[in-house]
């Protein structure tokens, strides 16, 4: 009897097993409060040793557990989603390489070894973005890798700075980094901003949606983009009380607001979810910059569960409607795909912070702690508006795709009867419902002390309800014979184009240097440098060698002349 198990099934089983092991170990670590550091000496010569270090504390193990469970679900899901693909195995290897890089990144307490995982993530994510071989993917991949490269360089510079300490182990040194280490902190902040796509590096995340949807579910929602947040969590001790915190707060609040606003004017289903991820990354980094790294980590984990689920639902929808990602082509999907739509609604509600879903525990607590903290009015306003906008774009998405009228062609066959895909979504669906409460019981055995006035306490709920109503009613009203957005054309275009950030990060950044390069080539390389360089030297040498040649070829005459000259000189001198 021959057992035939496909690669996605084996990978899924392995990853789920890994998740179970790391999750159990994380629970033990939380309970005991012990951190294990494994040092593996690779090479030792003349007293200097190269040691590979792994840190196994509850943060890294819990994160690993989540990465494994999400990647397991995604790989199982890919078994159906990518089934028709010619290079399915290549896809699988790339995703597994991604999980390996992520493990390196998460388990490294050392800036050099973290770079190994960090660069690996960048490289594999590039390979995954350009997995489809069209021009859009190529452009998106280039934007992704180059934006992330800035962060890689910042880490390299950080390594250079930290070399003066004699070790790159930030686990201990981060506690002793005062204001004199400002430059290192700036470098680390820049690298976190690039990976977590904060302003001004935001353009790459929506562009990276050119990747296959399972990749978006794993890489661009729950794992890779949170690497920046994770790095900041690891360095949170060093950030405590520094100027970096204020700067990061401004940037993250702006990102949160910009992404929320952009999602309300976006039409691409996957890009809406990507912008939502961007907004949530802003939430994580903002609470981290207020000094609550444990809350940032809590939101990182709960967000990973429901956002991966949201992307997987989007994938099934995109598959069903024949490759379309534009929400204007969708509508009334609740009648055709009830299970997928249910999962999508669960994920959406968790995202909005609907009571007792995953997002509620983390996001609500973050907002209340932020309201209680010492922040300025603008940051507070951005927090409130971004929360409202999150609910608003969620309801807009529901309005466009799930309810209303069916907008695609009359001949279509929509269903969600793909059990491989729906089954793998069930695990994350469970996580989106229960993940928040379970995590909060695990991570916070003691209650967080929150002291707010009644108005402030109800603020999040009120803003969410208001956002939901506005999201639905405004879009309902916008379905009009006389479109209002045309009258506010300029502002609509600006908000729908992420404040023109993709344009600024691509064309506007490279236009000048490209033009200059063209001019340099025309004037210098093909102009004066050629005239005096290549051609000029050739002419000069050919002239010189012509003279030398003529001297050589007429040797007898020359010798006679030279003898005559020598004789004359000799005679003159002897006189």
């Amino acid at each position: 009897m021959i057992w035939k198990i496909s690669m996605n099934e084996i990978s899924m089983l392995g990853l789920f097993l890994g998740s179970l092991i790391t999750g159990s170990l994380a629970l033990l670590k939380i309970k005991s409060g012990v951190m294990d550091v494994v040092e593996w000496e690779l090479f030792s010569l003349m007293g200097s040793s190269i040691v590979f270090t792994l840190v196994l504390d509850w943060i890294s193990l819990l994160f690993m557990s989540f990465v494994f469970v999400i990647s397991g679900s995604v790989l199982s899901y890919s078994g159906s989603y990518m089934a028709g693909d010619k290079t399915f195995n290549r896809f699988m290897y790339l995703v597994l390489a991604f999980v390996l890089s992520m493990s390196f990144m998460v388990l490294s307490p050392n800036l050099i070894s973290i770079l190994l995982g960090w660069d690996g993530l960048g490289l594999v994510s590039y390979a995954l973005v350009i997995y489809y071989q069209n021009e859009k993917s190529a452009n998106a991949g280039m934007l992704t890798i180059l934006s992330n490269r800035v962060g890689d360089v910042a880490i390299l510079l950080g390594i250079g700075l930290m070399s003066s300490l004699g070790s790159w182990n930030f686990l201990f040194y981060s506690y002793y980094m005062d204001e004199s280490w400002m430059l290192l902190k700036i470098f680390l902040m820049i690298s976190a901003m690039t990976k977590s796509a904060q302003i001004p590096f935001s353009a790459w995340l929506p562009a990276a949606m050119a990747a296959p949807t399972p990749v978006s579910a794993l890489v661009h929602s729950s794992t890779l983009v949170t690497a920046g947040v994770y790095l900041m969590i690891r360095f949170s001790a060093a950030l405590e009380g520094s100027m970096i915190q204020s700067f990061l707060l401004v940037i993250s609040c702006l990102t949160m607001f910009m992404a929320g606003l952009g999602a309300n004017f976006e039409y691409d289903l996957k890009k809406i979810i990507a912008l939502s991820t961007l907004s949530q990354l802003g939430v994580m980094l903002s609470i981290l910059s207020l000094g609550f790294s444990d809350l940032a980590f809590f939101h990182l984990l709960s967000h990973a569960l429901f956002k991966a689920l949201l992307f997987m639902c989007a994938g099934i929808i995109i598959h069903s409607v024949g490759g379309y990602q534009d929400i204007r082509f969708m509508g009334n999907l609740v009648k055709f795909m009830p299970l997928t739509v249910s999962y999508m609604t669960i994920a959406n509600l968790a995202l909005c912070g609907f009571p007792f879903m995953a997002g509620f525990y983390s996001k609500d607590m973050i907002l209340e702690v932020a309201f209680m903290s010492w922040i300025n009015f603008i940051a507070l306003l951005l927090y409130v508006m971004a929360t409202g906008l999150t609910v608003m774009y969620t309801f807009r998405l529901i309005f466009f795709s799930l309810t209303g009228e069916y907008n695609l062609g009359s001949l279509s066959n929509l269903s969600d009867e793909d059990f491989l895909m729906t089954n793998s979504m069930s695990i994350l669906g469970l996580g989106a419902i229960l993940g928040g409460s379970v995590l909060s019981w695990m991570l916070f055995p003691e209650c967080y002390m929150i002291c707010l006035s009644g108005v402030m306490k109800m603020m999040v709920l009120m803003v969410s309800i208001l956002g939901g109503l506005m999201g639905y009613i405004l879009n309902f009203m916008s379905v009009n014979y006389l479109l209002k957005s045309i009258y506010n054309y300029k502002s609509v275009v600006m908000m729908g184009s992420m404040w023109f950030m993709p344009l600024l990060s691509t064309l506007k950044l490279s236009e000048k240097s490209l033009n200059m390069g063209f001019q340099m080539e025309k004037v210098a390389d093909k102009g004066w440098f050629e005239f005096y360089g290549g051609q000029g030297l050739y002419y000069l040498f050919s002239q010189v060698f012509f003279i030398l040649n003529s001297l050589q070829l007429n040797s007898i005459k020359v010798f006679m002349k030279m003898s005559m000259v020598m004789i004359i000189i000799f005679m003159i001198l002897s006189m």
Partner: protein
Amino acid sequence: MSHIVTRVTTHSRKVCSLYKRSLRNLEAWYDRRYMYRYRAVLLRARFDENKDVKDMRVAQQLLDEGEKELFSLIHYQPRQFAYSPGGVAHGREVVPPDWVLDYWHPMEKAAYPEYFARREQRKKEYIEWWEKTYGKPAEPAH
């Protein structure tokens, strides 16, 4: 424009092109079919208003104004067919043509000796079959 213009584009073709692009633009703004149809009828009426203009100077001016208006209202995210140029799924899978294999380096071919030996054999058989069925191709004139 990267292509060389080899023919004159007539005025009526330019108007038709403007009309089609305007309809597509309307489709992107008005996502409900019945609203789009209403706006499309109004657009058609605007075009029909000037269909009998005989003075080419006026017609040209109208066309320029139309182009300007369309440019000023162009949608920031136009609706695209997924598998058509510009769409999200266009050209995702590139299938390299068969003749690419003939251009492999001999060293590369040597890595798969059986495959390429069979390929050469099949090519020979195919040429034989072709010549038997359709006759030998004519010699080139030059």
